[in-house]
């Protein structure tokens, strides 16, 4: 069965229409001349111009980007370590608790995570600001990274690591020279996931940020509560554009890496 049956074609078309039409409408109306977002009054890019002059949004965007870079990098290191421990660590004391702490944040309602982290920060007397948002974001996004990386770790051939160890590598060398290059695409997509999760987060950031650090989603949320505005449409369009470019680049990189790996495997099979 290599052709698409009509049922599948219809469900895919409707499904993707449902997923994409709201965003396409949003993008179209960001180029609307009128302040009334629901009435089309001609093409204009003026809302983008106004956006570029909005200091509050620009400041918030800068805070958001710094938080995302720091937290996603930290989360990638911690999450990769956690994945390695989970898949290759064997049995150790409290393994069930550990795996529970990896999976629970994936589904934990954000209001609970946010509230509990805030109470922790206040309890230990840490001033709320960029640092506290970074700590909070790292904690929940490392779990996503670890799920992504561990799904790659379980599928790859462990005998490659064993071979490296037999040939005289230390465990650290084996990890750096064999394991890391193989799981690199998963580590990169884990980083990207952590980055976008951090860019996106409203609830946890609202709890853990102080007056000195407002992130973009917090700003957007307070503006959106008052209703739809073309300026927010323009900002949303820019954010959608950044994510689209990022996801497409990432998938091309992964595809190339996987093709190269397949070629290597085929070459290896020939020499055997």
């Amino acid at each position: 069965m290599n052709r698409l049956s009509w049922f599948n074609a219809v469900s895919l078309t409707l499904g993707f229409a449902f997923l994409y039409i709201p965003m396409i409408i949003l993008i179209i109306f960001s180029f609307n001349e009128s302040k009334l977002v629901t009435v089309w009054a001609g093409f204009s890019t003026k809302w983008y111009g106004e956006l570029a002059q909005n200091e509050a949004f620009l400041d918030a965007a800068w805070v958001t980007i710094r938080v995302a870079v720091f937290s996603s990098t930290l989360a990638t290191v911690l999450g990769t370590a956690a994945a390695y421990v989970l898949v290759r660590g064997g049995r150790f004391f409290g393994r069930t608790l550990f795996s529970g702490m990896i999976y629970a944040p994936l589904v934990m309602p954000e209001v609970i995570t946010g509230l509990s982290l805030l109470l922790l920060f206040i309890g230990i007397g840490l001033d709320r600001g960029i640092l506290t948002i970074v700590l909070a974001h790292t904690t929940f996004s490392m779990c996503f990274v670890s799920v992504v990386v561990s799904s790659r770790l379980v599928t790859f051939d462990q005998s490659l690591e064993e071979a490296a160890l037999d040939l005289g590598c230390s465990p650290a060398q084996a990890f750096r020279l064999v394991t890391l290059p193989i799981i690199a695409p998963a580590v990169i997509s884990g980083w990207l996931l952590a980055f976008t999760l951090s860019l996106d987060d409203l609830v946890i950031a609202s709890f853990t940020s102080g007056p000195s650090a407002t992130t973009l989603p917090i700003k957007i949320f307070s503006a959106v509560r008052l209703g739809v505005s073309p300026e927010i449409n323009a900002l949303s369009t820019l954010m959608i554009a950044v994510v689209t470019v990022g996801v497409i680049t990432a998938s091309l990189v992964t595809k190339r890496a996987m093709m190269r790996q397949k070629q290597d495997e085929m070459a290896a099979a020939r020499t055997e």
Partner: protein
Amino acid sequence: MRRAFLIAIPYVWLLALFLVPFFIVLKISLSDIALAIPPYTPTLDFSQGWAGIKDFFSQLDFENFIWLTEDDLYWKAYLSSVKIAVISTFFTLLVGYPIAYGMARAPVEWRPTLMMLVILPFWTSFLIRVYAWMGILSNEGYLNQLLLWTGIISTPLTILNTQTAVYIGIVYTYLPFMILPIYSALERMDESLIEAAEDLGCSRVQAFWLVTIPLSRPGIIAGCFLVMIPVIGEFVIPSLLGGSGTLMIGKVLWEEFFSNRDWPVASAVAVVLLLILVIPIVLFQRNQQKQTEAEQ
């Protein structure tokens, strides 16, 4: 030695920033509100030694939890959150399964592109995706304009700020969480099993119910958990699309904390919510672990 170090770093991080905070929430839920910084009492004072600790524990009580049972608002909010989560999970499954099925049966060379098309909205800001529906569903919104223009309705429908809008918003934003696990279960499935069932006299519909559905069950279970658990505590969707008529516990917790500044009651709300979620979360984690071990 190195192995212990590798285990310890993520372990300690999660203990300190995930597990310990829950105990702090529990402790504050047993405290009383106070006009102070931080706005609750008692606070633990180690400088007075054992007497201080004893004094601290003697001041903790279940007053906030009793308060939760006395005021209708809270249990109604819990109930309506669970109801909204169950119904919207069902609809997400209904919409998501055919898409996942179509993807898994599409030609192999299309699949990476289809996969990317599902992931793309998932990576786009949650807030933006909810916001997009505000423009569509409002009284002067695009949906009403379209329906009025085609003559299907003569007066605009009120959808925004109702529970219908909340359901639409949840199905829309959580759809990728349902599609991806089901797709990965279906994609791994051996299609010759369907052929075998059909050879043995099953109709296509029977083969679907008897072979495809059971084999995709781990994906369905994972998808349902991934949607239902976070939706119970959802805040953004009910506050932007639901209006004042939609009662959900995430919104109640938020308002208790940010508007009323009653941290002990907000903590008590969180503790009860967590108790409701503990069983589904444990089941979800079991399901995930079983799948990971099956792959290994």
